């Protein structure tokens, strides 16, 4: 069938028409191969614009559609829906971004118009080489595996538990089986079990759990990592002299401090050392200042005679309540000293704390008890989990989010979510918040009874060209490629592939392409853009 391409140029109010001479574009575009209609429109994303486009597709019998407007990030899905309503496969649509990439980047009207013409012609050359792609759906299992029952894991169970989906909750601690979550509807608790293997993909994961020699296979649609974090030990911080008996870690349960205060002088001096281990881990944990201030307040009440002091590098108390807490301890007479801890040593019955001042000179304070306020570090199990799941652990060892802004509750593997301090230091409030956010996202993306839409623009391996070198396996973030030892070629699992194109770039033989972005399409697009 002969291509009938319609090009529709959006004025975007005045956003585009102010800088791009749309009337001058029309004859240049009409000249492009396959084009049967070029029309400007005031605002294509409006209700009127969408109805107009839908009608045009039908009236003109369009086989391909080019929308020259804004960024596809903003309205690609809008216009794909319009295409569908007009009876056109949504992948036969190509957008040319003449707003962000032309109108908004120059004051030169002539240049903007010239570039717009090239970009629209390039989009046209690309779209006529596009084949319709089927929209694929797959039945999805709404059940969820939650790894870890700390604050975030428990919050997630409480949010998502119900008759619609089964929640499998795994924790290496046996005690959770008898804990407060036991007996909830649809919740199966596996205390003392751990994750051994995860196969499959979003909506259809097969998981092996193990406990000693016992194994159990379960099927879930998604996995939530709520494995939490822990605080650094004195040994890990490895400050010189850390073994001194007068040095303790700030415990999670403050009562645990009491035994250390026994046998101290009547007016004991207690020095809280902030940022312990911070330089070693390479980040500010962001939660410890507040925790330390609360501990100081608690101690001041318990042992009114205690003289409290604090060695700090930065004060990090964000949020509505932090400053009040800080002012509170300043008001209570806690002596604040700026200093970077360099070492600890015994001095009689006391402990000497050496530090560097801001000007580089060295200082020393002695105290009856030194309380180290430790940095938060990933749970050692997180790395193991990431390896099993195949998701990215960042350089710090915490679970890396899919995207810090756009997908903060996702990981690099679709269907594997993360909540709480598994992805970075968080206090209880923030862990609760993130658990709620992750639960909401899981509930929205994995609706019980609904199917999942699969990516249509997946990559494909041309078996005749593949040399089986397996470079693509190394760069696939989603684990979507397998090597077939019989065919001696690599193959893409289209249910997992998300069309990112990493493998295309890595393939030395040009054997891989992404549907909708084939070599031929990109080549013709570039040729048209630079001709």
């Amino acid at each position, binding site marked *: 069938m002969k291509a009938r391409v319609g090009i529709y140029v959006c004025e975007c109010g005045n956003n585009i028409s102010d800088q791009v001479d749309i009337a001058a574009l029309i004859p240049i575009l009409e000249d492009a191969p396959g084009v049967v209609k070029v029309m400007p429109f005031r605002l294509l994303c409006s209700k009127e614009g969408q109805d107009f486009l839908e009608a045009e597709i039908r009236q003109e019998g369009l086989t391909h559609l080019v929308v020259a407007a804004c960024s596809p990030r903003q309205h690609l899905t809008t216009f794909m829906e319009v295409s569908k309503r007009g009876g056109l496969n949504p992948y036969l649509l190509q957008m040319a971004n003449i707003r962000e990439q032309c109108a908004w980047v120059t004051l030169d009207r002539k240049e903007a118009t010239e570039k717009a013409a090239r970009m629209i012609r390039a989009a046209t050359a690309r779209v006529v080489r596009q084949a319709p792609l089927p929209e694929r759906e797959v039945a999805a299992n709404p059940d969820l595996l939650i790894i870890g029952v700390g604050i975030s894991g428990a919050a997630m169970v409480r949010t998502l538990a119900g008759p619609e989906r089964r929640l499998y909750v795994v924790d290496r601690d046996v005690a959770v089986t008898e804990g407060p979550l036991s007996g909830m509807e649809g919740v199966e608790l596996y205390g003392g079990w751990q994750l051994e293997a995860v196969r499959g993909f979003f909506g259809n994961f097969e998981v092996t759990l193990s406990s000693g020699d016992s194994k159990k296979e379960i099927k879930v649609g998604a996995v939530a990592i709520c494995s939490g974090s822990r605080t650094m030990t004195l040994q890990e911080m490895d400050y010189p002299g850390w073994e001194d008996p007068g040095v303790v870690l700030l415990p999670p349960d403050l009562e645990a401090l009491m035994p250390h205060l026994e046998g101290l002088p009547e007016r004991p001096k207690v020095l809280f050392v902030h940022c312990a281990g911070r330089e070693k881990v390479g980040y500010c944990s962001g939660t410890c200042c507040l925790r330390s201030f609360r501990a100081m307040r608690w101690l001041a009440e318990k042992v009114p005679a205690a003289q409290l002091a604090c060695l700090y590098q930065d004060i990090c108390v964000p949020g509505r309540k932090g400053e009040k807490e800080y002012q509170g301890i300043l008001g209570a007479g806690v002596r604040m000293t700026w200093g970077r801890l360099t070492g600890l040593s015994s001095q009689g019955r006391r402990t000497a704390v050496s530090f560097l001042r801001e000007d580089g000179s060295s200082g020393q304070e002695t105290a009856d008890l030194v309380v180290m306020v430790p940095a938060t570090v990933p749970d050692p199990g997180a790395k193991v989990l990431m390896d099993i799941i195949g998701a990215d652990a960042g350089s710090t060892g915490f679970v890396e989010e899919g995207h810090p802004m756009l997908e903060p509750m996702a990981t690099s593997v679709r269907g594997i979510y993360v909540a709480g301090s598994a992805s970075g230091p968080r206090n209880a409030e923030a862990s609760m918040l993130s658990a709620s956010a992750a639960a909401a996202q899981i509930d929205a993306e994995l609706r019980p009874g609904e199917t999942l839409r699969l990516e249509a623009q997946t990559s494909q391996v041309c078996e005749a060209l593949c040399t089986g*070198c397996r470079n693509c396996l190394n760069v696939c973030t989603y684990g979507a490629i397998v090597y077939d030892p019989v065919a001696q070629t690599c193959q893409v699992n289209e249910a997992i592939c998300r069309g990112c194109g990493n493998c295309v770039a890595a393939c030395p033989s040009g054997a891989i392409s992404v549907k909708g972005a084939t070599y031929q399409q990109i080549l013709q697009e570039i*040729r048209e853009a630079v001709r």
Partner: protein
Amino acid sequence: MTGGMGPQALVPLLERALQKGTCDAVLLPMRTPRNDSYAFVLVRDPLLLQRSDPLPPVQTVTGGRALSSLTRHGGGGLRILAVMRPCETRGAIELAKLGQVDLKDVTLITMDCPGTVPLPMFARGELHPSGIDFSDQSIRPICQICDLSCAAVGDLHLGWGEGLAPVLLPGNERGSKVLQDLGLKADHDASEWSAAAGRRAQARREEREVRLGQLRTSTSGLDNLMVHLDSCINCHNCMRVCPVCYCRVCTFDLKRQERSANEVLDLAKTRGHLRMPMDTLMFHLGRMNHMSLNCVSCGACEDACPAGVPIAQVFAMVSDRTQRAFGYRAGMDRKQRPPLITFLEEELEGEDEQRC
């Protein structure tokens, strides 16, 4: 080391390896039945080794390619002793990094290489020596500037030459193991050989700098480069024989690479003139782009060129610089990953000029 003076000294050793079961088979160059050429042959019968010539005066199919067809994607689990020149071995090592050769069961044996004569002249009988020595002037231009001709890149390396006691040097544990299995000791005093090898390499390196420098001047700019490619007939032979060009079908042989006649006419209109066919320069630049980081300067491309294009020298000129830019020398370090398949967040920043 026992036996004769040159590489032929390896033959009794290989016989013994087959007899004792140190390996299942030996891969090495042999004289063809009519005694007028050489080919890599996989040998399991020690008696057949009599026809072998570990260091033939000409390079036909390169050793890396031969090994690839035997071991690609795991092979059949045969324990092979493979005898080839340093450049061929480096090609095999590059292929191993690219997943096209499996060295798991292969012991690579190299030896000092004095070079080979040009294949076309050999085939026509214009130059048909039965062996080459280190003073030979008739070797290929690419051999004349080969500074790695004595590189001990094999698991086991034979150093030899006129006035030199041959030395057998294990390059790693695998090499030592083979020597041990054969009841041989490594030659501990290799100082005489290493001094000689160092001198050879130094002389070649200097020659390489001079000749490639001249070539660089004369190929500077696309127009001048094209002058050197003027006689290219687009046969793509250079790609087909290249040991590190391993794609099943070359991108430049694919339909998708072809422009339609309309497009070509369109371009001709814009530019005023067009040389036909269009893709000569694109093919060579594209191949350089794809392969220069893996190029081992074996010269197979130049031997295969029916039009006399000095393509191996052009590649040597480019790859010396591209490889230096990445601190890479193809086939030398088995552990170093090829730059094209290594992702680093930060590299080549700021100092391009000094690097290449």
